[in-house]
């Protein structure tokens, strides 16, 4: 199919074009109706492929000059369609990392990843959610005789922040795909283990797929089942309940009935407490905002190792910006965002994990929580 651009010069030409349109039932793009065709004004018509030659002959016969505006309409349509499959066919048999996946598929992905990379990856149970779903984390660990320090990363503590679990999956894929060839990654793995929890708030995540895309909290019931969900990132035992929270279950920052009242919180806290002397860095991934946040949320008094925390964060932000120019702001939650208490990141730091960060991924509000899937790749690449 082609689209032709014609500027009729005379009334006769206008009439002939109107006749052509109705005879061949041509698709008028501009103007919309044949009766609006005017001498001296732009005309755009789409001509179906089998008729192209005949129409052009007719135009030539009537001395009507034309220009081919679009030589191949189908090609243009194909180009403007989102690519169905990314060119990245990845490390676990065709899993598409540039799309958002429901929880069922993430569970399957974890099993596959371990199966395909068993020399490096083991899958472990962390605990259970309120609705009794199993929480798994992946341990990426290169066999060696030295004990290694741990970097912990959790994603999806807030249900609606879909880019976060997408990042955890991407991260795992990148490590596994490149550890043999990328000297930085291979050095990392010689000295460190990665523990990745792809979805912390599984119940909430599923709820955001099935019922309410903008749900944030867990799904534990309160007040006789009239009200649901605790903000898991207000439920940890760090100045719990002091600031930036609500004690009303219907609030999106409801901190629960007490510190660690939620099974998901307990599962994470217990594990991290047990391993804390080996954990070097605690990362928790959120969206949106493009921020690297340091402790604390409950006070503007800086943590003891603030200089180190800030320096590392600033270097991270610079490296991130170097990829696609995306700007990330760096600083404590209390100064950059708002006051809050009971966050996992603050708790991790107070129990002694020195490098503790919250990442708020893209964007800054244009799409907010509903970040288009075509931004998964650049977001993840720059954050790596």
């Amino acid at each position, binding site marked *: 199919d082609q689209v032709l651009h014609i500027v009729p010069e005379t009334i006769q030409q206008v009439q002939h074009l109107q006749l052509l349109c109705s005879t061949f039932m041509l698709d008028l793009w501009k103007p*919309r109706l044949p009766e609006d065709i005017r001498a001296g004004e732009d005309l755009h018509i789409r001509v179906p492929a089998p008729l192209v030659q005949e129409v052009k002959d007719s135009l030539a016969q009537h001395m009507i000059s034309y220009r081919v505006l679009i030589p191949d309409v189908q090609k243009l349509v194909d180009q*403007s369609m*989102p690519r169905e499959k990314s060119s990245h066919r990845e490390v676990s048999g065709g899993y598409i990392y540039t*799309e*958002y996946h429901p929880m069922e598929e993430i569970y399957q992905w974890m099993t596959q990843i371990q199966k395909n990379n068993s020399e490096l990856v083991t899958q472990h149970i962390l605990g259970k959610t309120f609705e009794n779903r199993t929480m798994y984390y992946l341990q990426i660990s290169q066999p060696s005789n030295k004990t290694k320090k741990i970097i912990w990363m959790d994603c999806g503590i807030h249900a609606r922040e879909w880019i976060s679990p997408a990042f955890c999956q991407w991260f795992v894929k990148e490590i596994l795909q490149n550890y043999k060839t990328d000297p930085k990654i291979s050095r990392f793995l010689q000295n460190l283990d990665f523990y990745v929890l792809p979805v912390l708030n599984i119940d909430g995540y599923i709820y955001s*797929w099935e019922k*309410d*895309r*903008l749900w*944030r909290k867990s799904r534990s019931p309160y007040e006789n089942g009239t009200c649901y969900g605790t*903000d898991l990132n207000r439920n940890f035992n760090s100045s719990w309940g002091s600031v930036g929270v*609500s004690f009303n279950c*219907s*609030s*999106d*920052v409801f901190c629960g009935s007490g510190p660690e009242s939620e099974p998901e919180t307990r599962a994470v806290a217990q594990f991290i407490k047990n391993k804390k002397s080996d954990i070097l860095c605690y990362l928790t991934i959120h969206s949106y905002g493009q921020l690297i946040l340091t402790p604390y949320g409950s006070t503007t008094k800086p943590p003891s190792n603030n200089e180190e925390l800030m320096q590392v964060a600033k270097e991270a932000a610079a490296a991130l910006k170097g990829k696609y120019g995306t*700007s990330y*702001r*760096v*600083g404590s939650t209390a*100064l*950059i*965002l*708002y006051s809050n208490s009971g966050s996992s990141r603050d708790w991790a730091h107070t129990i002694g994990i020195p490098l503790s960060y919250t990442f708020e991924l893209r964007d*800054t*509000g*244009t*799409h*907010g*929580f*509903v*970040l*288009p*899937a*075509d*931004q998964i790749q650049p977001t993840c690449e720059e954050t790596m």
Partner: protein
Amino acid sequence: RAMELPPGHFPAARAAALAVGYLRYLRGGPSSGLQLRELRRARLQDIDDVGHKYYLELELEDVLDKDRTVSCTAEVLYQLGSKSSAPDVQLTVQGELRSTEEADQEFYNRIRSLEKELVAENIPDSHGNVPPELEPIHLLAWAASGYVIWQNSTENTKFHLAQVKHVKQVKRNDEDLQFDFVVLLHEMVSQEVLPWEVTLLWHPQRGARVPQSRAMGAGS
């Protein structure tokens, strides 16, 4: 007498979000949408018996044409103790964005000639997609939300449009286009997602106006 504020900290960031909301309302249309690229500078003046006045220097870009930027100086006055009146915003924009006259007119003609009134929901959808023919509606929703954000912001709030839940065109006897929106606004400090009903009138020459808006009841 005006104190310099770190642009990266939340007081300035909240005032900037408000200024951008207001600007989106003033300049909003179906063919362009302004977003904040950077808050360059912020100062705060505490005016006795009046309120807090923020002086902001912003750099904005057009979402449809990201290489083009304009600068904007804004004065945002949050009035003391006033729960019922909107912050006062004064803006000066320097620089010009590309002309949207032709695109606006085409959109206007397209909508006017629809036989059935336009209805749509969930813009963007759960995966962040907006069909191209709904992008102008999305941008008009930004203008409509800009009004609500301006009218309802305080120093303790930061609003963004999270999603357009529903939109319905209403045919009119006069020359305006009318769209009745249900928009979901995300408020950063409380983390709440608040549904608002907003009616938007738009005309290629007269621009956007909101004759009415109201917060919807709890539970969407």
